[in-house]
């Protein structure tokens, strides 16, 4: 098989996972996307009134587990703008990204795949950048340990996005897919 760069040939075939593995993986992805959608919806419903009416510290419940949950919510409640700028593009990213991996979708709607890819890239950059800002600018629930994880993986996420963009500009489809 000759590639688009000329005579530097590369014979290849793909190892395709069987149908059961693919179905299992897609089910896991759908489940995780649904969890993500639920989390973003819940957080948005909590933060939008705070953004409109302003923040007021909530009463602390006497039940210790409830108090812990409240403390978690309260951290985000003190930074409603930053949190929303992080989670709303993340919602778009979670909902749109699975489409990009569908061969059928790419074959039938290549232009839409490209447009969606640009939107995803933009959302991804916002999500990754705000994740970094949140890691340093907000008190981390899990202390330095959590901040270290979110910082490292936000950088990795942005790096992977940059790699995906670079490879598609060089028309290296396989490497673009890996990202």
């Amino acid at each position, binding site marked *: 098989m000759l590639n688009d760069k000329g*005579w530097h040939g*590369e014979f290849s*075939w793909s190892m395709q*996972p069987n149908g059961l593995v693919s179905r299992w993986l897609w089910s896991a992805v759908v489940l995780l996307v649904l969890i993500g959608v639920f989390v973003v919806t819940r957080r948005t419903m909590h933060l939008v009134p705070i953004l409109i009416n302003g923040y007021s510290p909530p009463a602390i419940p006497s039940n210790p587990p409830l108090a812990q949950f409240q403390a978690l919510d309260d951290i985000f409640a003190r930074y409603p703008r930053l949190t929303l700028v992080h989670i709303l593009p993340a919602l778009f990213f979670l909902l749109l990204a699975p489409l990009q991996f569908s061969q059928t979708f790419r074959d039938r709607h290549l232009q839409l795949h490209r447009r969606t890819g640009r939107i995803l890239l933009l959302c*991804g950059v916002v999500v990754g950048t705000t994740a970094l800002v949140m890691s340093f600018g907000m008190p*981390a629930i899990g202390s330095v340990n*959590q901040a270290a994880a979110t910082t490292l993986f936000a950088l990795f996420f942005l790096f992977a996005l940059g*790699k995906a963009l670079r490879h598609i500009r060089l028309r290296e489809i396989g490497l673009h897919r*890996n990202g």
Partner: protein
Amino acid sequence: MIRAFSIGLAVATIRPIVGVFFATARFTGLTPYEFFGTAFWIGFVLHLIAAEVWIQWTRPQAFKISSLYLRKETYHGDP
């Protein structure tokens, strides 16, 4: 994109992990301050491994043939 999407999805995986830590907190004695970081590391690393396994598994198996053999003027048969 697989790596980026996988890391993005990790945030959803972290929720059930945090749930397990919360549910077992009375036995382990861990507080959210102690287990949140661990939950984040577990979630992100699991997804990173899953992405790399998937990429390796579905990677096109390729063997490159030197361009020398493929150039019209020098190609005289199978390498």
